[in-house]
């Protein structure tokens, strides 16, 4: 049951577009920086397989320039 956090760097002038695209994904919580072109994404999925698929989905967003993972936790879903 992975929980991971990422730094999402948008393409130039695409911070809002990236924020909107990521926010539409059910497993993602998105926290935009107030004063820099950067977003934090926290993902919450049921399995590693689902997480891998989600990562590919995020990486295919046009407004995304770079996605870098910061931390990963694995925890029982109902703990």
């Amino acid at each position, binding site marked *: 049951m992975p929980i991971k956090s990422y730094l999402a760097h948008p393409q130039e002038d695409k911070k809002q577009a990236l924020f909107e695209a990521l926010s539409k994904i059910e497993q993602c919580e998105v926290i935009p*920086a107030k004063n820099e072109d950067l977003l934090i994404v926290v993902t919450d999925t049921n399995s590693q397989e689902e997480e891998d698929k989600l990562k590919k989905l995020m990486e295919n967003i046009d407004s995304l320039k770079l996605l870098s993972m910061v*931390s990963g936790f694995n*925890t029982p879903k109902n703990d």
Partner: protein
Amino acid sequence: MNNTLTNRRSFIKKMAALSAMTAAASLFPGILFAEEQIKGIPDGDLEWKKGPCRFCGVGCGILVGVENGKAVAVKGDPNSSVNKGLLCVKGYHQIMCIQASDRLKYALVKKNGKYVETPLDEALDLVAEKMKDTIEKHGKDSVAMYTSGQSTIPEGYVASKFMKGAIGTNNLDCNARLCMASAVTGFLTTFGADEPMGCYEDIDHADYFITWGNNMAEMHPVLFSRMLEQKNRRGAKIIDFATRTTRSSMASNKSILFEPQTDLAVANAICYEIIKNGWVNKKFVEEHVNFNKGLTNIGYGLEDKFSFKDKATKINFEEYKAFLADYTPEKVAKYSRVSVKDIKYLAAIYGDPNKKVVSYWCMGMNQHTRGTWINNLVYNIHLLTGKISQPGNGPFSLTGQPSACGTAREVGTFTHKLPKGVVTNKKHRELAAKIWKVPVDRIPSKPTYHATEMFRAVDRGDIKFIWTQVTNPLVSLPKTSRYRPAMEKESCFVVVSDVFPTPTSDVADVILPASWHIEKSGMYGNSERRTQQWDKMIEGPGETKPDAWMTIEVAKRMGYGDLFPYSEENHAEEIYNEYIQFHKGAKHGMAPLEVLKEQSGAIWPYVNGKSTQWRFNAEYDPACTNGKDFHFYGKKDGKAVIWQRPYEPAPEVPSAEYPFWLNTGRVIEHWHTGSMTRRIPVLHKAMPNAYLELHPEDAKTLGISNGENVKVTSKRGSCIMPASINERGLPTKGQVFAPFFDENLMINDVTIDAFCPISKEPDYKKCAVKVEKV
């Protein structure tokens, strides 16, 4: 799913977000996630309680979310004008250390070499008995207290009253000596009054921010964020003047690097250029400034019992101008490594009458064997140009600790200080005696030991009992290679009050379990003269008690109970109300308690229900009474002083045997010696250990790769730590840098205990070392 932080999965998600914020802060100095603070933290049944942040001297307002008696969340206080709802990574995480598994919950007494859990009352009995016995056998100057710029105002006040008013010794000093003493002596010699004249609102008005040896992006991140906001919004410019390329340099408009110690010469060269180009504000200088020179070749304090007293001699403008002839940009460029063009560039910024300039500094200028001088020299620049005490114009000495100003400087927990004034002044002693209700003769008129000399006295066996509170000197002192064995000697009984075990508590005979910040009520005073109050938010574990209360309990046991008639429940408030009697009047009036409870702090002088934002400026400061636009009322004639201070070299410079400068400092993730922040998992994970930064060319010459262990050695000691090349910061060629937060990698075994002879503040920024691959 229960959507509160007490739910483990939500908590882990929060941790993941905080980890990312920490990483983001490493990439983008000053990055803010204001929306997250509001949106990401559940309200639920949380009760939000206001207070100041525990870390650093900026004094951000925080709101702590309390649920079922536990602190579970922190957010920035939107009503605080300091941070306007924003926090840095340390601020967000601060409460996460409280429940660390090795929290000191009960008193520990060393018996037969082992620590034995002991009822607090019994431990306090022992402390009082030992202190009393020591005084009886060896005199009152054989006992000492060493406190902190992180002590609350009441804690500092009762320590001063206990040592100076009750026992009658000036053996009280504090760790602010290690960070702020040069700022104090700089203010006193130039203005006759301590602490900055401006406030943080200067940031909203300045056209230029010039930072002198000050990595604000890591050390004062919220203020740096405010500066970046002004840079982005209205084109304000940040000029970073430093010895090392840091995150602040990278985020600034321009970075200018100088050879260590030559800031003295560059400051004089700037003044030379200001005069040469006719940029002196003649009216201001004529009306508000005197010129003095002091003694030169003043030493470095390396010897025990070193003594120095400066002597001021009046000079005139022409003599000062002639002195500056040795500091032409061309001459100074040769040894400062700052180009003539850059010196002239800096002078032109200060000299332009249409540009508002704020100079910021902190440890780079204060931890300096000529710390008082370099403070004086930056004031010279602002006084020559009249850019002072106005919104957006002024010199601004930033504080390192949350109450270095409020407690160490204003209450006066230094050997020479009293809550108002100094021990050498009869009137000041009389005022203290009157308020403390003690005979005036009991307060000694001579200062005794400043911090470094206090631990030298422990080593010599002159001090036989020492009590430290809220500080970890065996990590933070310079030359710990001498002072650790000194504190281990059986000749001195050591009492340590702290929240967590530290290398200092490791040598204690008695360890007293202290309440953490929000487990007690208190007040702090920040860099902009803002006093901030908070009420106890949660119960501390076990038998933890506020430091002030433990001091009071020991005082009572020693027979001084009548001087400490405070109640356990309300002692912080009762002490504050007694304390502010010292500062009555327009020059330093403190806000009453009810005001502090209502709002997120108030700036002194607090006069007629109003904070004074810019001192010495008649437009804002009711204490100005000379009928002119400015009144530097700290000096008898109302004039500030431009000091003639030369460049003098550091006591120890790189040599064939020790070819590198060693500079030490802090990192954004950790607070000082790391005793709290290293117990916050997300911060510890982000920065798990100290390191030695090298210039890539030096590393290549020595055959050192990134991450490889290197041994850094001085005449005093050595330390093995991993090399860091092209990572966090970039030292100039011939210089190395190490942070001091890591008790396992003790860089202060290597540093030198030389200090400014006027302020007695040690220089942690310059000594000579060699570096070897291990």
